[in-house]
């Protein structure tokens, strides 16, 4: 479904990504793990078009998208929840969700999508008129995910959902993400600091270090991989 082939990404003259290739298949959940600054977010941004690969190609459902403008990529069915949520904080929750359905094909089915979103995030139904900036962190993250779903994506890109959230709240959010993936077969590519939690819910994982792919495989295999355990579970291992 999504295929990244040997991309290089630069920030000005600084190379951030070196020959990364990865595949997300229909209905699968794929996680990118790695330490801070490894380049996970850059890969996601390259898919949504916020940064441009200098070499290599990205294709989605057999169309090359790495030269398409950002709004066009959304129209094709890739929606991103950016790091730090980036809500329109002075607008109401409903205003945010409506903007999520800006894409033409999504506007027609706006109300159906809204009803589906109330099923996944029942909390939002009571908050719909509230100004988005006044919600709690967890609720804001739900709005950010819901807003991305309003465009009826086939692939959802999630960047650091658990950032700034308590472990309990982020676990809850990931439960909802699981539900989204299962109920509508929406493929998910996510970047996550909390490696254990991410691998537990994913089908496949890629390990990114210094802008390169250092390992890949089934999520449960990676979860048991001693190198991965060593590098990312660190203290958690000792505490268990």
């Amino acid at each position, binding site marked *: 479904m999504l295929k990244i082939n040997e991309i290089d990404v630069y920030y000005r003259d600084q190379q951030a990504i070196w020959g990364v290739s990865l595949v997300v298949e229909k209905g699968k959940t794929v996680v990118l793990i790695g330490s801070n600054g490894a380049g996970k977010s850059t890969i996601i941004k390259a898919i949504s078009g*916020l940064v441009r690969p200098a070499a290599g190609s990205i294709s989605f459902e057999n169309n090359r998208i790495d030269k398409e403008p950002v709004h066009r990529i959304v129209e094709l069915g890739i*929606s991103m929840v*950016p790091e730090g949520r980036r*809500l*329109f904080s002075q607008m109401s929750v409903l205003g945010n969700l409506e903007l999520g359905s*800006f894409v033409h094909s999504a506007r027609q089915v706006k109300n159906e999508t809204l009803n589906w979103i109330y099923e996944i995030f029942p909390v939002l139904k009571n908050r719909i008129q509230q100004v988005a900036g006044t919600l709690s962190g967890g609720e804001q993250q739900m709005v950010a995910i819901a807003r991305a779903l309003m465009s009826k994506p086939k692939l959802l890109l999630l960047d650091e959902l658990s950032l700034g959230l308590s472990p309990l709240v982020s676990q809850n959010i990931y439960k909802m993400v699981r539900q989204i993936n299962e109920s509508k077969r929406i493929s998910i590519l996510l970047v996550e600091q909390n490696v254990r939690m991410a691998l537990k819910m994913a089908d496949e994982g890629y390990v990114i270090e210094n802008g390169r792919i250092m390992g890949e495989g089934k999520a449960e295999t990676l979860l048991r991989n001693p190198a991965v355990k060593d590098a990312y579970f660190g203290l958690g291992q000792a505490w268990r």
Partner: protein
Amino acid sequence: MIVTQAIISGLIIGALYGLAAIGLGLVFGVMKYLNIAHGSFIMLGGYASYWLFALLHLDPFISLPLVMLIMFIMGLIFYRILLAPLSKFSEDLKVNNSLLITFGLIMVVDNSATLLWTSWPKSITTLYSGAAFNIFGIRLTYIGLGGMGLAIVIILALHLFLTKTYFGKAITAIAQDWEAASLMGINIDYTYLISCALAITLAGVAGVLIVLCYSVTPSGGFSWLMIAFIVVTLAGMGNLYGIFAAGLLLGVSQAVGSLLIGSSYQGVIGFAILLLTVLFRPDGIFTRKRKGYAR
């Protein structure tokens, strides 16, 4: 009674101030371009109306849609040629560079206007110019009332456009976070193009009212730019809704102030308000206090 008269005329001119400023606020608040040629576009709107009146004998209120169309097209060209190439820069570079470019544009527009229309003030005198009626001893000119009515209609239309249409909401979203807006599938470049054309159109409407109530000169754009700046700062940068209120506030305080301390201090009053705002409410008078919330 004199004070009431001053307040009423202040409201009338204040509506015009709001109209003159809203285009500047739109371009700066949404697109982060500083268009200091805004006043020159106001003048161009006035000249367009003047020409249609002098050459084709069209009443300014009748030729208004035509002037708006001309200004809209001018805005499209202005964005495509001068502003669009800056869109890849960061926010502060955009502000600096658009300031330089539009400063150059002032030179070009003002000198072309001198060639085309001479440096003499031009104004439109219609049959109803100066006609007025009295209500409770307050003198109201038809043009003043018509201008205020027009300003209110346009601001309301803009408000409905921004809050009720998808395109308008996209403009508001871009003003808050353009990158997040692009992730919603909003075409940023196209939205900028139309917003800029709209802003120039609104400048043109203000110009029509100015040529009717006062006069236009090639260099007169600068004083209107100053007024627009004061109004936008009072409202708070990026706060489109406060602009009309800020215009009214400035108009009334100038009118009442010049009644109390003399009309030669009119300019001082405006800048004094500006200074006080920047000192005590740098985010603008009509902005809600920012929430302590990281974006």
